[in-house]
């Protein structure tokens, strides 16, 4: 049996004096699509960022792909994070942003791949990202996910700002990503979580 993709054990995280995560534990197995549900401020985004190794918890352990999160380096390239809103260089075009993502991950830049990923989500390649609507940025984030093919896909409220066609494409991308690894998504939308997730986890405010 293969190892869990994510193991979070008794994690505590605070910002200043405010504890945001208190004794949180979670395991995500290969092939799972886990939806984190909960009200604003409960720590869903913080948990995603801890798992993405972007911030360190004060206490507790995080293991990714069977290794302690502190020790992963090359494996970090297997993590895909779609923030809310997704982050891109606004003065670069969508295509240039995708090529940058490939280059910074140390992968060969293939223009045709970037263009194909953009066409796949219905985006024009040459327009600068600053001229994109929020829905188009979400679509560009999907294009980046298609291109990077992460083994662990972390999504923060991915369904917001997307139209119906965009949501359908999002669901396809999530299922594709889960086949190659696992998906963990944070959302307020219970119906979306119900439709896409194989397991739902409710986070509650504590203290």
């Amino acid at each position, binding site marked *: 049996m293969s190892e869990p993709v994510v193991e979070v054990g008794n994690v505590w995280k605070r910002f200043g004096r405010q504890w945001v995560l208190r004794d949180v534990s979670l395991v995500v197995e290969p092939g799972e699509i886990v939806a984190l549900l909960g009200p604003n401020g409960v720590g869903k985004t913080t948990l995603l*960022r801890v798992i993405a*190794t*972007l911030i360190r918890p004060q206490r507790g352990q995080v293991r990714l792909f069977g290794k302690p999160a502190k020790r992963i380096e090359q494996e970090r390239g297997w993590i895909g994070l779609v923030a809310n809103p997704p982050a891109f*260089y606004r*003065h*670069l075009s969508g295509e240039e942003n995708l090529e940058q*993502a490939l280059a910074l991950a*140390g992968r060969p830049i293939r223009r045709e791949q970037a263009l194909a990923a953009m066409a796949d989500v219905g985006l024009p390649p040459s327009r600068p990202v600053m001229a994109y609507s929020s829905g188009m940025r979400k679509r560009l984030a999907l294009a980046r996910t298609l291109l990077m093919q992460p083994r662990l896909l972390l999504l923060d409220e991915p369904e917001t700002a997307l139209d119906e066609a965009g949501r359908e494409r999002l669901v396809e991308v999530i299922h594709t990503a889960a086949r190659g690894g696992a998906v963990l998504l944070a959302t307020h939308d219970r119906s979306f979580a119900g439709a896409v997730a194989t397991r739902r986890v409710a986070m509650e405010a504590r203290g």
Partner: protein
Amino acid sequence: MRAWVLALRDLRLEWRGRAGLLSAFSFIAVVLFIMGIAFGPDEGNLRRAGPGVLWVALAFAGSLLASRAWAIEVENETLDELLLAPGSREWIYVGKLLFLWVLMMVMGAFLLVLVAAWFYLPLAAWPQLLVTLVLGGTGYTAVSAFYAGLTVRLRARDVLLYLLVFPLILPVVLAAVKATIGIAFGADIAEVVSWWKLLGVFDVVYLTLCVLLFPGVIEG
């Protein structure tokens, strides 16, 4: 390799926006104008002040550029994208350092010409001035790129940057000023070389420490 990709990408963004260089050039022009007025029309005064004015202006404008190097990531909220790239994270520092170094050299060359025109710095000695600029600029960018990265997530980052960088960078600025004075007043080349050696030592020490420490401090 990825450090070059990052540096070239930042240069492309800077070229499209020109926010960093324009503000640094404007700052330099204002500093030189005020200093020029303050030291009056006397040629001897201006000659003596020239090397100090050059490096003070470069140091302050360099801090503006160091903030700019990381502000690109803050404005676009893309720092996480860099941190998620595979491998150890030294390359992020090296990429920002390269970007900042190129801007510093462009600005330093511009500043040399202005100081030569206003403060009688002898441009005939341009090869020596260029060596001093490269050695002094490298030490300065090594420290300022590191601390600008360290403070990038803080609200008071611009104030903190000056407070953190200037005490550490003082030996570099002093050695660079001494070398420039030697060049400006025709001192023995051996004396200038001794300051260059000191600058070289600072560069190696600062670069090594910053590369080693950066991965540990950039994580939130």
